[in-house]
């Protein structure tokens, strides 16, 4: 097992002056994590923080089972509970973003990102719902964002980041 310095630099980049250094590994995050409980520990936020902090990328990315990273559902319960005020979910976003680029994201996330790329919305409108809306007397769903979304996502190179799917 070796330290990936570039990975560690990315993780600590934003947090060098912050609290990550002071993680006590006290495991309060695991205690309150609902997914840690239902997954019998397969998802372990304490361990994600430790591996991210130490730069042990291979323990998080490139594993056959991506639950170690993707078990997190961003319920923010660990953030609220951490006695050291570590913003755990902010670290998880960094790790997940890298996992996406490595081609390891669960299908749900890829489908959603492609929907936003194509239509500007995670959940695009359907004809049946349009009909239902008009039966209910609801106004049409506003449009006019589509071109802006395409331009912005071209700039952030989202398509390239999703190239492995």
């Amino acid at each position: 097992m070796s330290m990936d310095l570039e990975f560690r630099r990315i993780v600590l980049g934003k947090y060098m002056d912050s609290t990550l250094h002071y993680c006590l590994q006290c495991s309060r995050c695991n205690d309150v994590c609902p997914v840690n409980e239902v997954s019998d520990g397969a998802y372990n936020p304490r361990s994600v923080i430790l591996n991210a902090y130490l730069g042990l990328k291979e323990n998080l990315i490139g594993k056959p089972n991506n639950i170690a990273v993707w078990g997190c559902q961003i319920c923010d319960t660990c953030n609220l509970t951490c006695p050291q005020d570590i913003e755990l979910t902010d670290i998880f976003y960094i790790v997940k973003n890298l996992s996406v680029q490595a081609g390891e994201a669960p299908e749900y996330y890829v489908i959603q990102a492609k929907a936003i790329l194509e239509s500007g919305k995670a959940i695009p409108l359907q004809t049946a719902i349009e009909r239902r809306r008009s039966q209910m007397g609801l106004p049409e769903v506003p449009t006019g964002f589509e071109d802006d979304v395409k331009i912005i996502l071209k700039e952030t190179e989202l398509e390239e980041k999703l190239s492995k799917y």
Partner: protein
Amino acid sequence: MSEYKLFAGCVIPNRLPFLELASRKVFEKLGVQTSDAPFSCCPDPVGFQSTDKESWLALGARNLCIAEEEGKDIVSLCNGCTQTLKAVQYDIARASELEKQRISDILAKVNKEYKGSITVKHFVQVLIEDVGIDKIKSMIKKPIELKIACHTGCHYARPAEVMNWDDPEHPIYLRQLVEACGATPVDYEEEVLCCGAGAGNAKPEYGLGVLKRKLDSVISAGADCICVVCPACFTQFDTQQRALSKMVEKEYKIPVLYLTELMALGMGFTPKDLNLKYHGVKTKNIMEKIGL
């Protein structure tokens, strides 16, 4: 009360229009004025932020710019949209000069400039601060005498430093609003537990596991139904109880009401006016219980 830009999101307008209907009816009755705008996806704080933070930040900032151009605050019907828009403001405020410049360069491509000049509110906050409990109570013609499990959901008040609203561990405002409708909020152990929708995105069994823990707690407290303020929680409760029943071979069928549906019923709208027929878990039994 000044007019808000209505941020209805993706899920409500495009999948659950009956929730938009109830919300618009309630806003109209209470004098909450809103107007629409060409907002894109907020985008989803759980999904899209996990996929690519920079894309999430830039699209969220563009949405904020649109409301800023009109000088109007945003009222959101969804926890997720509220959290994204507030978190984008929070992140940009804390970003380095380099990061700020990057976002500003991206926005310049679509002729937008982010100022950070507006406030984003969850609709519960507007109901509490702009309308007030007393006025809402005075509008309730038909008290909804049900025992209700209040579920605020994760992104309603967490993370506390971003949301800066209500108590994240003991949320009080949803309870007050449910009470104002003549209902009784029940105490249950798992009130602040997540609905499990997010975990289900990675592995369905995990989502159902969290849902089970939540519903068992709701049932043992003797609640007639669950009241929610987020379409992701609504969908999880309303559509996944069937899958959970199958998985654990025990029937779960607790009805779910959106807060604005509950309020609209209290204001005298009928289940038919509100199209409650589109709920997955049928509301017939609880409607009979209150004589509707």
